[in-house]
């Protein structure tokens, strides 16, 4: 359906190059991002492919995408995924629990404590400690100020630490 022109071919070729470079730079991080936040390998694969379908479309339009933009796309894709999952089964809480417990973590106590954090604080914590983003990057990704990132991170660390300590104490008493 497309009209081929010499200029069009050049744009296509440049788009392909940008896409491949973006894919090489971001794929593994995006895949891991989804593995940390979805219920298993197939979902992570599908969502990663979805992200790069969008990246491919944008590259073909001549856009060059930074890692943060790609992660912005990944966040939207994940949000849509959760929305449709919730819509279809209407079991948000169960889904959330399954998500963190089914992630293959050996530390169930950490997973439980993570579940009880405020979502916005948990996200800052995970983007920092699991995805390896700096505060400035998290700020750009979540569109919040760097101060807000630091505050949320501080609260999340403290809260997680307290929750784990409480859980540990309860477990010790039960033994």
């Amino acid at each position: 359906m497309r009209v081929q022109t010499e200029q069009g071919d050049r744009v296509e070729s440049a788009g392909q190059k940008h896409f491949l470079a973006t894919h090489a730079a971001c794929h593994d991080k995006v895949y891991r991002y989804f593995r940390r936040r979805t219920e298993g390998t197939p979902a992570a694969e599908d969502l990663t492919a979805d992200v790069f379908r969008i990246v491919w479309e944008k590259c073909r339009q001549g856009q060059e995408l930074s890692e943060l933009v790609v992660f912005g796309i990944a966040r939207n894709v994940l949000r849509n995924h959760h929305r449709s999952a919730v819509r279809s089964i209407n079991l948000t809480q169960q889904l959330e629990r399954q998500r963190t417990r089914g992630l293959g973590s050996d530390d169930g106590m950490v997973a439980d404590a993570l579940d009880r954090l405020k979502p916005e604080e948990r996200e800052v914590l995970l983007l920092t400690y699991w995805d390896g983003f700096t505060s400035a990057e998290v700020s750009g990704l979540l569109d919040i100020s760097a101060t807000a990132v630091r505050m949320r991170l501080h609260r999340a660390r403290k809260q997680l630490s307290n929750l784990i300590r409480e859980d540990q104490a309860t477990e010790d008493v039960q033994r």
Partner: protein
Amino acid sequence: MSSKEKSTMDRLTAADPASAVTEEELARSREKSLAVMDTDAEHITVGGSVADFHQQHPGRRVRLAAGFGLAAAAAIVAGVVVTSAMTAPPTEQTAPAATQLDPAPETGSSSALPLPEITGSPTPTVEADIVTGGSGKLAVSTTEIDGVISEGIYMRPDVLRILKLEADNKGCIGNGFLFPTGTKVTDTGLVLPDGTVFSTGDVISFGGLEVNSKDVGECADGRPLVYMEEVRAYPGKVPNVGG
């Protein structure tokens, strides 16, 4: 951060579910997400593509969305995926002939076809063989092929070979590169299964390498080749001698 918090953060890091991600998983996902290049698939909504929609002025988006809301009461608005590859005749999807890569593609229309893929590569280049050469990342697993196998291979340490990237669909190159099965052949070059990109026409160079051990293999078309198990970068000044 207090020591208790630090210990919690250590536990959090150790509990990262992505630490269980395997290389096979990543390879499978890479392949799947690269497959979008095989088609001209474009998500179309009423009034244009999804991308066009996102580029519109917000006010227009709101009006459009409102219009869709009304229209939805009377009709189902379905997304349509137009895939021109679906209409391509099967004969166009066969693997390409040797020397698939052309530094200056004539038509540029091959994006409508599935990307040719290297198959049956007998001694694939593996991660450990991807070394940094004189001008960038270099995948090396073979060296001079024809007529020298029986005597073994030894490359003069004072010679730098400079080659332009080209490959056939079996992954064999006359001068001795071998790319792994699963490498995609694109209009612009090669993409290794691990995502490493080589562009057609890139001058890639290596030199001062010596073969410390070798394993004779065979290209899919019967040409012999040698797998270099260990390579060392040339440490001295690189002379400008063409390959």
